[in-house]
């Protein structure tokens, strides 16, 4: 199988769709049409490829982790999205969406951000293309990710705190959608994950598929074949879908790693919020519950609809790790490989470390979706 075009209904099995206020329906339809035409246009693709190589620094390397492999007892490779410009995989999607927004005649980007990685990437693309940019960020996250807030402002973006609800990523999405409802005529909503209303889950996946296609080629060259396991952290799930897309038609096992306090696939049931039907943490009346994770980027009660579909059909499975396991893994990778991971991909490392016995003898590819500089201040507090 390959990951499919979800068609006009935007469905991945039972999941996905377009559950948005009527005001936004024409904008989502226009975005879908524009993306279809741009994605089939060699001029657009060439321009995006040029930005990905000359500006973002792609292709990102594949790194063999000898000391970590020795410690864990099986072979570990990292796909180094942390080495992209702005420090995470988020730039792949944002460059695509900003180019598309410009092609659609939009002059302003609005974005939500959790850890600030998508916000920084959006602010960067806006600066590059001379667009206005406003980023909504939960008040709690503004505190724990002060460095990224400063970076966004330095790049010329306006950072607006989301002060309702849990004051984290979920509420930043609400605020960004409210902004878009009011500004849809000149504004593109630069959504940061494989979530939201159709066409976002599909479009964002396509912009991140470059991770998987590069990694597959690199594995063929370096391993002479496919890894046994491909793993990535999952909040909304964009970096995971990006790398899974390159291996979904192989025998590799696909494993998403969720934070135990925000495990939508692991602990949620199907629901509808933020424009999509997907697994969702909710109470007995359908009120969305707050997620709790040490990682601001994964602190989200939902998940992209294609992950719900992959879980339902059994093509991917989803593990959970605790904050404490993540803190251990953050230090483990730093100490053994000289790579300080972001707290988000540290979830994937945490799973490898915990389940090392079950993984013995296998070759595991991890999507190292972002670097840890942004988390250092927070970890100084945690580790004392």
């Amino acid at each position: 199988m390959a990951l499919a075009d979800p068609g006009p209904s935007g469905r991945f099995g039972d999941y996905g769709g377009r559950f948005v206020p009527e005001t936004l329906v024409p904008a989502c339809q226009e975005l879908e049409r524009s993306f279809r035409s741009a994605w089939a246009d060699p001029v657009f693709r060439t321009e995006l490829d040029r930005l990905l190589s000359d500006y973002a620094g792609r292709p990102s390397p594949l790194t063999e982790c000898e000391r970590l492999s020795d410690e864990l007892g099986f072979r570990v490779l990292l796909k180094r999205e942390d080495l992209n410009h702005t420090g995470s995989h988020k730039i792949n999607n944002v460059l695509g969406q900003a180019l598309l927004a410009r092609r659609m005649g939009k002059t302003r980007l609005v974005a939500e951000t959790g850890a600030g990685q998508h916000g920084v990437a959006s602010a960067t693309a806006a600066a590059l293309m001379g667009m206005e940019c406003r980023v909504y960020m939960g008040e709690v996250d503004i505190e724990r990710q002060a460095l990224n807030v400063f970076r966004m402002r330095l790049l010329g973006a306006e950072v607006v705190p989301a002060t309702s609800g849990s004051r984290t990523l979920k509420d930043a999405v609400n605020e960004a959608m409210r902004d878009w409802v009011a500004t849809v005529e000149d504004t593109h909503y630069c959504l940061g994950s494989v979530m939201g209303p159709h066409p976002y889950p599909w479009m964002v996946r396509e912009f991140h598929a470059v991770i998987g296609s590069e990694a597959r080629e690199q594995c063929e060259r370096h391993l002479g074949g496919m890894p046994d396991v491909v793993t990535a952290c999952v909040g909304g799930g964009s970096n995971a879908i990006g790398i899974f897309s390159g291996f979904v038609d192989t025998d590799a096992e696909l494993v998403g790693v969720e934070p135990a306090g925000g495990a939508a696939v692991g602990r949620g049931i199907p629901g509808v919020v933020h424009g999509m039907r997907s697994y969702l943490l909710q109470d007995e009346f359908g009120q969305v519950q707050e997620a709790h994770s040490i990682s601001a980027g994964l602190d989200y009660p939902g998940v992209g609809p294609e992950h719900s579909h992959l879980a339902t059909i059994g093509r991917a499975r989803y593990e959970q790790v605790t904050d404490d396991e993540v803190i251990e893994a953050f230090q483990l990778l730093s100490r053994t490989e000289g790579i300080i991971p972001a707290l988000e991909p540290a979830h994937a490392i945490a799973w490898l470390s915990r389940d090392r016995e079950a993984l013995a003898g296998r070759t595991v590819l991890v999507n190292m979706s972002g670097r840890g500089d942004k988390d250092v201040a927070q970890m100084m507090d945690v580790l004392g």
Partner: protein
Amino acid sequence: MSEIPAAPAAPGALEAALRAGRDAGRKLLVPYLTGGLTVDGDHWLEVLRAVVDAGADAVEIGIPFSDPVMDGPIIQEASERALQSGATPLSILDELRRADVGVPLAVMTYYNVAYHMGHERFAAELADAGVAAAILPDLPFEEVGPWAAAADAAGVETVMLAAPTAPDDRLPVVCERARGFVYAVGLLGVTGERAALATSSLKIAARLKAVTDKPVLVGVGISDADQAVEVCSVADGVIVGSAVVRRVLAGEGPAGAADFVGSIRAALDASIDQ
């Protein structure tokens, strides 16, 4: 995309009442209240009775949802406070069942509340509580099929929203599926008061009146009697939400809400007489 059933041919209780009011030469007034929002000991059902007595033709009752993306700060705050005080969809419907206010009621909530309970059960609970209609602002035409089928079967009217961004060919399709009334979204933005009436309100009302004979009510951004009168020069009526709820949140109670709703009623009636 699942199949979207045609709307029932006959109007339900809400649409019948609104059509009758319009046919009698009246401009229609539908206040919005957040269900379960009790401030300073003034029970929300008392506020409901007071706005009915002040001249509401129907009332929209919000069932609070954790993530109200179509709502501005006032209704967000009201929703949050109602949820914190323990209000649930079933507790609100239970209270409505006993309210017997004498005008049709429409529930406004977000789709996950209905989806989570199950379409058939939610529709049955509404009907059982005497609620005539449902408004689900995050359930656009393309996605309305499964809910509409259950609502139609239970005799619950599904109000459809029509927005200024809709191209001309979309409006008749939306109106065709609407029952109760057509909810004209007055402006680009979320619910909340505005200093002046948006010109988009008049424009969307006129575009809708040109394609449907169902009652066309404008909501979102209608803030006072003057704005209500102005938009009703084109529309059949108005929905007034945040301006009412702000007064409830401020502790003005049933009397304050009734004063305000009554002032709009009087202005609308006076505009007809002239």
